[in-house]
């Protein structure tokens, strides 16, 4: 393809993104979440904050892996301060584990709702509160209209919301920014050492609005994410990270 046409297409893509509300990121904000090559899947190559993400948690191990990834993401979102609100009907997240992902669990507020239908109301109220780092809700079912309401709430407040979808049968189209699926991968220790190593996940982005879905492998090193795909291709990447 001639370069002129490529430039035109790039420019058009940028324009479309701008009209859809994705402003080009400033340099300071770029790469702030630390997900490595996975961030390239998102528009402009930046993890989108101030929108709703959807994460599929069908079973216990899935949920645990998702909680791990989410804790790491929230840690990055809470680096600038703020609190996180976690809504659910049967919450099993263990606050003591959050410390390993660099989050102070004392800055989490857990809201245990008795009825499933209150979750959306609580989430919408929380999303309207400006300055919160993240709002997480464990929910079975969200209709398209309900997800649109949530999207409208975050557009003015710029809070990042996460929906943990716990029922695979109730999956439907939503306005969410991205749909994630996290599954645990066998851990590895260097030099065939015995024992269980760092948490590793297969992160699938099943759907990304204006982005490119794909599949990545990530590990948590204790203070940051480590991209395993990149490690395979670029050996220099891991030298800058500390394993521990």
């Amino acid at each position, binding site marked *: 393809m001639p370069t002129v046409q490529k430039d035109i297409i790039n420019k058009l893509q940028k324009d479309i993104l701008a009209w859809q509300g994705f402003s080009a990121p400033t340099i300071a904000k770029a790469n702030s979440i630390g997900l490595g090559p996975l961030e390239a899947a998102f528009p402009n190559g930046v993890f989108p904050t101030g929108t709703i993400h959807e994460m599929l948690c069908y079973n216990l191990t899935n*949920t645990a892996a998702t909680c791990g990834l989410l804790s790491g993401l929230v840690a990055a979102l809470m680096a600038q301060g703020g609190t996180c609100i976690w809504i659910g009907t049967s919450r099993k997240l263990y606050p003591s584990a959050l410390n390993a992902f660099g989050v102070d669990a004392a800055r989490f507020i857990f*809201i245990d709702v008795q009825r499933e239908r209150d979750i959306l109301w609580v989430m919408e109220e929380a999303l309207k509160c400006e300055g919160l*780092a993240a709002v997480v809700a464990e929910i079975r079912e969200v209709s398209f209209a309900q997800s649109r309401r949530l999207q409208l709430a975050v557009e003015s407040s710029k809070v990042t919301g996460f929906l943990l979808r716990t029922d695979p049968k109730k999956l439907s189209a939503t306005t969410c920014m991205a749909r994630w699926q996290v599954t645990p991968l066998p851990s590895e220790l260097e030099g065939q050492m015995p024992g269980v190593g760092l948490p590793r996940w297969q992160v699938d982005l099943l759907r990304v609005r204006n982005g490119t879905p794909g599949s990545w492998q990530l590990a948590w090193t204790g203070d940051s994410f480590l991209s395993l795909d990149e490690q395979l291709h670029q050996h220099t990447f891991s030298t800058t990270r500390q394993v521990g």
Partner: protein
Amino acid sequence: MQKRFVSLWFRHLLTDWLTLRQPELQQVPFVVAAPERNRIIITATNLLAQQHGITTGMASADAKAVIPGLKVIDHLPEKVDQLLYRLGEWCIRYSPLIALDPPYGLIMDVSGCTHLWGGEQQYLDHLLNRFRTKGYDVQGAMADTVGAAWAVAHFGKADAIIAPNQHIEALLTLPPAALRLDQVSLERLRKLGFYTVKSFVSIKRTALRRRFGNDFLLRIDQAVGTVDEPLQVIHPIEAYHERLPSLEPIRTAEGIEIAIKTLLQNLCERLRDEGKGLRTAVLKCYRIDGGIVGAHIGTNRASNNTTHLFKLFALKIDSIEPALGIELFTLDAYKIEEVPQDQEVLWASDSCELESNDLAELLDRLGNKIGTENIKRYLPYESYWPERAIKKATSLTEKPATTWRTGRPRPSILLPCPEPIQVMFKLPDDPPVTFIYKGERHEVKKADDAERIECEWWQSKRPHRDYYVVEDNEGRRYWLFRSGHYTDEGAKWYIHGVFA
């Protein structure tokens, strides 16, 4: 705080006042008398008349026989009460809590007031001298209890200050009348030969109760301080209460909204002036059919923000059933706290911290709809036992007393209670080779060494747990434990959590 009370006794209240009004009375003995059962009985005397042996209760004819030309002034009904009330109001400059002690006394709660005058002695001197220079004959005393202060003011040495916790010794030498006993008891005590408090106070309570009744013991307890004596202060601190009657019965949601807004505006105006905010408020709606419906709100932080409080009530308007109509709305704020003065911050951070007002208001809204007990925050707790390693924070701003434990890994998901699993192991002290959980077989590929966690001995005598982090063939990581020692009979395996 150590309670301190002052009792004042105006011995010639009415005559002193008359002397102030008519200075020519200063040099002559005079009495105030009122007709009673066809006799003129003296109700008050001045000091000069008293020195001639004239007392209250004497017939005025008898008194005139003692002092020829004694001036008798007609009694002024209710003047004494008025006078006492006015003196009480004047005393508010010395303490906010003043109670009347009819007929001729005042009781002041001076706890925490005296240092403003440089000490208790200076305080009492200042107070009494102000009255004396004005022309009132007053006696006062300060003590730990109302009863003791009263006793010393009336029967002890003048202007006495009983040091803290010394009031019982001070009472012992006083006559029984110092305990404010009724006339019958006093008479009986006199007949029995008890002339001082000391002589009967050490008698067994059952014996005293049998002879003198419960009131007698109550008076002793009040003087000693074992029983609290409530004061009826003349200017009680007003309750935070607002009323709004309606001309026409209100039946619509808009009407109720307007009523709540009006009530809140009035209440918040007062709260703002006093620098206070409410933590709980109760709205009551009196219906014309006699029923009372209402709503109750609570806040995480004292608030006097009308809009915010109205939002909390707005969530509950649906539950208010007006039926035939509501004729009266009342709003009570039962829990009031100081509102910290918000300082204007020049570079306020955008993020919503735990201390921020936005978060507190959000949680108020959520808590009033789904219940505040469902909103939780966890702090680390000094315990290795996983269920007890976290504790619920009591308030939004409570700081962790200890740090989060970092040594061994903890699972992202902790099951509400450990679930039993079937295991197979090669060596009894090793992690299992396979385990079956919910009908699914997991082959353990990797495992960490055991972490032994014992329950604190003062909590319960449960067996210790040996925790293992294991990873199965699909890379799923679990937290398993064996309850008890492997040689024990009841040693069982459980799954307790799932790692990320």
